[in-house]
């Protein structure tokens, strides 16, 4: 092959360092590239980007990058749902797999300097948002208020517990948790995530605000409705879309929604853009 041309389908070898249980069927995988140069190059990703992860013999699949580029560690958080995610879950520390990326547009965090950030996540929707939250906290002085609204089915479904504890205790963030169903271990708020917006004592800034919304489709629809009702403009609501993906580089055609290739034009879109894609999400 000619010099300088890069093979866009070639993944780079990585080693699994450590696995941490998050919630049922969801684990976080800490890893690093075998080649330190690749690790440095990859480390410059943007919040909201993703990677194509290869477990050889099974295949390749997309995973978000939950760390912020301001953190030292690279890791994925993956739910076990099918063949590739199943094979990843079967790996042990020291095992090899491979990664290529980072891909996608990511969140334009610099454009949000000077604004209020409102993060709304449902379930594992927190995975891509964690990156933005950590980024915002690492550049705390660049932003106005930072609010986090997090919903989970039960208290056992809350992930990134250590981060949650830190965010709850940090003076720089307002972090509000809720669960759909109460249990004896839980003494916090009960209700869908949107119910937090109306909770006494909570006031969501509407002017000069960017709202990040990630979660299951049903939660997405309700939260969007709430935010629009509160007066947030469509272009100030951002989200990441999820589509079946095979290549991550705009060639295989699997991820298209209407006029967009989610892998290269997204996965980050404003609600204004999502509405105009011309196809159901």
């Amino acid at each position, binding site marked *: *092959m000619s010099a300088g*041309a890069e093979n866009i*389908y*070639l993944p780079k070898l990585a080693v699994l360092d450590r696995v941490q249980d998050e919630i049922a069927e969801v684990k976080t995988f800490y890893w690093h590239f075998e080649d330190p140069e690749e690790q440095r190059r990859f480390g410059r990703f943007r919040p909201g980007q993703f990677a194509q992860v290869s477990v050889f013999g099974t295949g390749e699949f997309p995973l978000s990058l939950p760390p912020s580029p301001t953190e030292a560690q690279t890791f994925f958080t993956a739910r076990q749902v099918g063949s590739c995610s199943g094979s990843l879950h079967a790996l042990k520390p020291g095992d090899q797999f491979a990664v290529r990326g980072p891909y996608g547009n990511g969140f334009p965090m610099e454009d949000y300097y000077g604004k209020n950030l409102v993060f709304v996540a449902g379930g594992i929707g927190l995975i891509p948002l964690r990156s933005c939250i950590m980024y915002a906290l690492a550049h705390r002085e660049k932003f106005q208020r930072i609010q986090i609204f997090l919903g989970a089915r039960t208290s056992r479904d809350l992930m990134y517990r250590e981060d949650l504890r830190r965010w709850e205790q940090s003076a720089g963030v307002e972090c509000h948790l809720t669960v759909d169903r109460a249990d004896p271990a839980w003494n916090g708020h009960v209700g869908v995530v949107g119910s937090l917006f109306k909770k006494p004592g909570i006031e969501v800034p509407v002017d000069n605000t960017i709202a990040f919304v990630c979660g299951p489709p049903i939660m997405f629809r309700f939260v969007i409705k709430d935010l629009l009702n509160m007066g947030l403009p469509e272009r100030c609501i951002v989200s990441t879309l999820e589509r*079946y993906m095979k290549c991550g580089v705009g060639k295989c055609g699997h991820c298209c929604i209407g006029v967009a290739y989610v892998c290269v034009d997204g996965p980050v879109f404003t609600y204004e853009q999502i509405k105009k894609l011309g*196809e159901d*999400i």
Partner: protein
Amino acid sequence: MKARILNHDQVLTVVDLLRARGYEVIAPFCRDEESRRDTFFDVVTDDNRAHVRVHVANPFYPPKRYVLPHIERLFRIGTGSGTFDIQPTYEHPKRAIFGIRSCDVAGIWHLDRFYLGREFRDTYYEQRRRNLFLVNVVCSDPNVDIADECFCVCADTGPAARDHFDLQLMDLHDGEFMAVAGTPAGEALFANPVFRKGTEAHVERRRAILSDVRKRFKTTTSWFPATVRYVSQGKILDKTWEEIGNRCLECGGCTYVCPACTCFTVTDRKVGPDEIERVRIWDSCALGGFTRMAGGHNPRKAVHDRRNRRFFRKLAHYFIQRELSMACLGCGRCAAVCHGDVGMPSVVEMIRRAMGETGRLSATAGGEQS
């Protein structure tokens, strides 16, 4: 562009010249004399050279496979040494396609725009494309070259390609062919003595034949551009897409024969005790599994959503502008293979009829007492 004349019985000299220069030459053949539609592309050998067809119905299996094989290995993964050993495999054969039709020349150009354009260049496509030489043959015999479904004349890709070939041959039907060079590599062939200079009369003859051939298409639609406009504006009713979708049997045939369809899937397979390979395989948006995600959620559940997708991708102005090339070249293959008669020309026609029916005036509307 420089043009030359050569004798009818010397036209296969082009094949010989290319073979002598080290090209593997692909050319169209016909299964037997009777079955005129049973045609295929194959490698020219000493044995079959005499059977190469210049006038032939365009094979259903498009020449796309020479730049995008049906199944293509991306890399091997050795597992024997205790560490994964990733070995990419590249193929860049010195290859020429003799007798590629004008629509398919535009098809390769579309693939160039798609795979080599935008953010990323497709490495494997680029490798195969690098040494590909295209000898376009103009469809000048309406009885043989032009199938009932061809509508290149409406897609503005044929019957004579204007560019993107290395060499173009056209039968002047008087014992002579005209050769047009599209690239310096094509022009280099003119050094051979079989090529001679032509006259104004040759050029005039070419023009006259083409103007006659253009009238001989059985499938034509003046509605192609209008359809692009309506699809781009989202003006086509769900009802119309449903009507189109209801006729699709989800065989995927239209996408496999299409010279401009680009979608593929990727999978790993074990090929030996210590070896895995990753391959990409042509895929089809007509198939239900194309967008189905883990857990079963499928954003394009209904057949008509998927049908809609294929035509939206090909007709929406957004994509035409994105590639500066349209993903339908009017080759007519999808029309010929579709069991449900929802190939591109029929779809354009169904949209034309549906648009004619919308927005009808009603003289009686306006309440009871009118």
